[in-house]
């Protein structure tokens, strides 16, 4: 007789964290309230580029309530430094409060503290800043014009960094090509925009020199390290807590100057200090994303084989470099990922970040890949069209089919289902393709079908960051698994949960290894006091590396449990199985002992342990990613319907075929894919941060910055292929970001298909569709 082992990995387990989120009892940053707390309000630059002539705070003295005011003179020398050690990168840093100069609208110039948040805001409005305005650098073209002044003293130009990546013989590819197809594509400035704004609370205990910082962040340990280095405090005396976090999407995956500043203010004033960002601040001065222009030149043989690709990439970075991914991260990522899922061996990319008087660019779900895939997949359709080939056939002709595959830059792709996912999508879309073709004869309604085929490097390990010389430096995730004397399990995890469901998925992973139920596993995260050092949740590594760490740590713990059980059951450790809360002798399930009794023996009745065994039941694992990461793949498809007389576009259908290796929990995986897709639809059709010629932001509220609402979105169809990777402990690949990567390309290809035009930029809002469909309305 054998013990029946339930398998929790792969099961559609409902999320444990939902109870507190649904009942209103979750605790987000604004729910942190401390006695004697001061509230902070920022005075922010209202002009994009200026010298600060004077900051006059004298009006605050007349107020009938107490205020504290600080300017860049008080915080002189404290700054955000985010540099990549490339000789060609120009160094910049952002003072916590502007020193002498402001470089974008929204830059913090001063702070006012008061005992009431309303009053802090009132008082901040009384601070008068006299600016001497300077001409702005507002566009990529201006930034690349070396005759214009630089934003920072000592810079040679406003090109922050320009580098190259290449592989193979591009000249030979060009010489052999029957077709040379050159196009320029651009993707607009946008951002992750979580529903909860950012916020920081800090408190300092002068007697014990202990600083506690609560922040709505995805990376509490990195916040701790940065604060320690900047404020010269030992990390052992800093605790950073991310409470419940209301969405991150990469926006909260950087260390911000305000996190350091609020900590410094708590130390300076001796009182707890709280800052809650408002929506306008979030939209103009947290971080932005994308804002790319790519010029691609493809070399293609007469029979439709991609021979080589040349790329020129510019990112409008805004004024400052963000920590820890820096200004070099975004353009470098495009250069790295453009080869994509296609088999060709000649490539050269020149990529640069340029400085303008705008909010800095940082990470947002997909990080540069939505822009890269937009260009790559628009190009594939443009090539297919030029060659008179079907978009599926052209891709299938060039898709990588042999694994592991070494790409033109030397990156190794683990096994995926690239061709299979394309073929599956082709079958799913057959009727739509027919209908789209038939709609060509209509002068009022056109249907279009577009696809995007892509791969995503996920869960990349330390060597990938070392190679890039990026200040993140490492990519491992740590887990500590502990069993208490009652047999209950605690996981202290270096990830941070802001919606990914890891309080459930990680419990599923531990439950399988330990033979307990997921309900008996309590997952703690987001607090540097309880959790082992890790880089936090970003880069599609939670399931793959966090899950791997929990799995391996749990196996270590299980091994000890088996040794104790073997001793007590008079069997050998390798004969013991853990299941359903019991330790069984395999093939003799009547010989068993409850796991909670083993736990009690390990921690309290230690006289029952085998001779020489140390008491205790805990294990740790630090799981780094593979050198080149593990590659997830997907095909996205959009079916659009365009009303020609009005230019109104309806997204009729959106289909995903994706492969993220082993699925830990299908409920969560589907949710991540669908949520990502709808953010990608926002990128494709709605969202756009607009600046005027003076670099004044025009999109400063949700009335101007339009995100997808429910009526504009169809149900998202998701199909899975599971190709487990040998490169992570559970076979899981990353999947958190992939949903957001394909939609802009798929929707643009659908528009191009419907209207029979080239599409070179997003967002494809009603105005854009109106312009693109002009030729179909004739001269009327």
């Amino acid at each position, binding site marked *: 007789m054998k013990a029946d082992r339930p398998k929790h990995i792969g099961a559609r387990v*409902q*999320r444990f*964290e*939902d*109870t*507190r*989120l*649904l*009942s*209103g*009892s*979750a*605790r*987000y940053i*604004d*729910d942190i309230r401390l006695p004697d707390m001061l509230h902070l309000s920022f005075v922010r630059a209202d002009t994009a580029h200026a010298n600060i002539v004077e900051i006059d705070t004298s009006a605050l003295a007349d107020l009938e309530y107490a205020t504290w005011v600080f300017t860049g003179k008080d915080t002189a020398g404290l700054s955000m430094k985010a540099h990549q050690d490339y000789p060609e990168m120009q160094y910049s840093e952002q003072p916590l409060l502007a020193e002498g100069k402001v470089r974008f609208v929204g830059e913090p110039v001063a702070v006012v503290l008061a005992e009431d948040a*309303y009053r802090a805001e009132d008082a901040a409005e009384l601070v008068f800043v006299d600016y001497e305005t300077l001409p702005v650098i507002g566009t990529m073209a201006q930034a690349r014009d070396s005759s214009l002044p630089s934003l920072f003293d000592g810079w040679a130009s406003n090109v922050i960094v320009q580098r190259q990546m290449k592989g193979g013989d591009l000249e030979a590819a060009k010489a052999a090509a029957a077709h040379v197809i050159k196009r320029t594509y651009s993707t607009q400035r946008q951002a*992750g*925009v*979580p*529903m*909860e*704004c950012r916020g920081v609370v800090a408190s300092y205990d002068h007697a014990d020199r202990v600083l506690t910082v609560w922040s709505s962040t995805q990376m509490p340990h990195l916040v701790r390290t940065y604060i320690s280095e900047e404020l010269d405090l030992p990390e052992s005396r800093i605790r950073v807590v991310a409470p*419940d*976090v*209301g*969405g*991150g*999407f990469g926006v909260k995956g950087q260390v911000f100057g305000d996190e350091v500043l609020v900590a410094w203010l708590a130390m300076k004033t001796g009182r707890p200090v709280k800052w809650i960002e*408002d*929506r306008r601040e979030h939209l103009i001065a947290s971080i932005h994303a994308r804002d790319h222009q790519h010029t691609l030149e493809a070399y293609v043989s007469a029979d439709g084989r991609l021979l080589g690709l040349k790329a020129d990439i510019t990112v409008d970075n805004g004024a400052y470099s963000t920590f820890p991914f820096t200004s070099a991260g975004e353009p470098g990522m495009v250069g790295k990922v453009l080869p994509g899922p296609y088999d060709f061996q000649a490539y050269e990319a020149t990529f640069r970040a340029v400085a303008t008087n705008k909010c800095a660019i940082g990470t947002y779900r997909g990080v540069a890949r939505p822009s890269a895939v937009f260009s790559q997949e628009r190009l594939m359709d443009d090539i297919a069209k030029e060659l008179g080939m079907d978009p599926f056939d052209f891709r299938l002709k060039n898709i990588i089919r042999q694994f592991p595959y070494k790409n033109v830059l030397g990156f190794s792709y683990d096994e995926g289902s690239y061709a299979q996912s394309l073929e599956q999508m082709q079958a799913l879309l057959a009727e739509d393709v027919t209908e789209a073709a038939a709609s060509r004869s209509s002068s009022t309604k056109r249907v279009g079908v577009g696809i995007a085929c892509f791969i995503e490097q996920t869960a990349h390990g330390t060597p990938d960051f070392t190679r890039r010389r990026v200040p993140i430096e490492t990519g491992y995730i740590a887990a500590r698994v502990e069993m208490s004397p009652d047999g209950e399990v605690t996981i202290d995890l270096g990830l941070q949960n*802001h*919606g*990914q*469901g890891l309080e459930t998925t990680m419990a599923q992973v531990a439950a399988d290894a330990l033979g307990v139920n997921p309900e008996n596993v309590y997952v703690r995260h987001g607090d540097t006091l309880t959790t082992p050092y890790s880089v936090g949740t970003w880069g599609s590594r939670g399931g793959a590396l966090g899950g791997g760490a929990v799995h391996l740590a749990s196996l270590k713990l299980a091994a000890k449990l088996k040794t104790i059980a073997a001793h007590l059951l008079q069997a050998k450790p390798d004969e013991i199985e853990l299941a359903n809360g019991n330790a069984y002798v395999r093939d003799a399930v009547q010989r068993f002992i409850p796991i909670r009794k083993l736990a009690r023996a390990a921690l309290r009745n230690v006289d029952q342990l085998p001779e020489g065994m140390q008491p205790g039941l805990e294990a740790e694992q630090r799981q780094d990613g593979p050198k080149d990461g593990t590659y997830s793949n997907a095909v996205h498809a959009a079916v659009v319907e365009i009303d020609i007389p009005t230019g109104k576009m309806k997204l009729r259908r959106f289909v995903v075929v994706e492969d993220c290796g082993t699925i830990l929990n299908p*409920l*969560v995986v*589907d*949710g991540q894919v*669908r*949520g*990502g*897709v*709808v*953010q990608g639809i926002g990128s494709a059709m709605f969202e756009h941060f607009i600046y005027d010629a003076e670099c004044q932001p025009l999109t400063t*509220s*949700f*009335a101007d910055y339009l*995100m*997808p*609402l*429910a*009526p504009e*979105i169809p*149900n*998202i169809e998701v199909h899975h292929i599971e190709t487990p990777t040998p490169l992570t402990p559970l076979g899981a690949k990353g999947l958190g970001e992939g*949903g957001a990567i394909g939609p802009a390309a798929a929707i643009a290809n659908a528009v191009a298909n419907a209207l029979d035009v080239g599409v070179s930029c997003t967002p494809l809002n009603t105005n854009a569709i109106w312009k693109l469909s002009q030729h179909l309305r004739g001269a009327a």
Partner: protein
Amino acid sequence: MIDITLEVNGKTKTLSVEPRHLLADVLRQEFGLSGVHIGCAHGACGCCTVHLDETPRLSCLTFAAQCDGSEIRTVESIGGPTAEHALQQAFRSEHGLQCGYCTPGFIMTLMPFIEEMVEQKRLPDDDEIREAMSGNICRCTGYHGIVAAVRKAVNLGLGGGI
């Protein structure tokens, strides 16, 4: 300062507020209701939705001083600390939430819609469900799970389960 009396989740309290104090702030700070979330403070995202005299209202666009004598319900009163209401249960089973920040606003917006559908004895189509939530923004789920949760809750109600 203005003295007002509010009945919040069944408890009556008289307090002094400044005329400019938002209902959202007063519910959060004076009544300790952490389920009232502020997403934009300009009436565009629906995170702060509460019931004011049985009607969904944006508590970030409402001054507390306007509400003297009113009855207010927040998400805390719907299904208790373990979120037992059928709509909350459906949000859980259909994965209608991820980070949870917009969730109380969606629950408070959609409860009257579900009750209305059940009263009319009909299952709305997806377009109608999506329209009913068009004043709320969710950034995590892509709305798919929320639509499914509403469908499930109405179905349960039609079967006598709500």
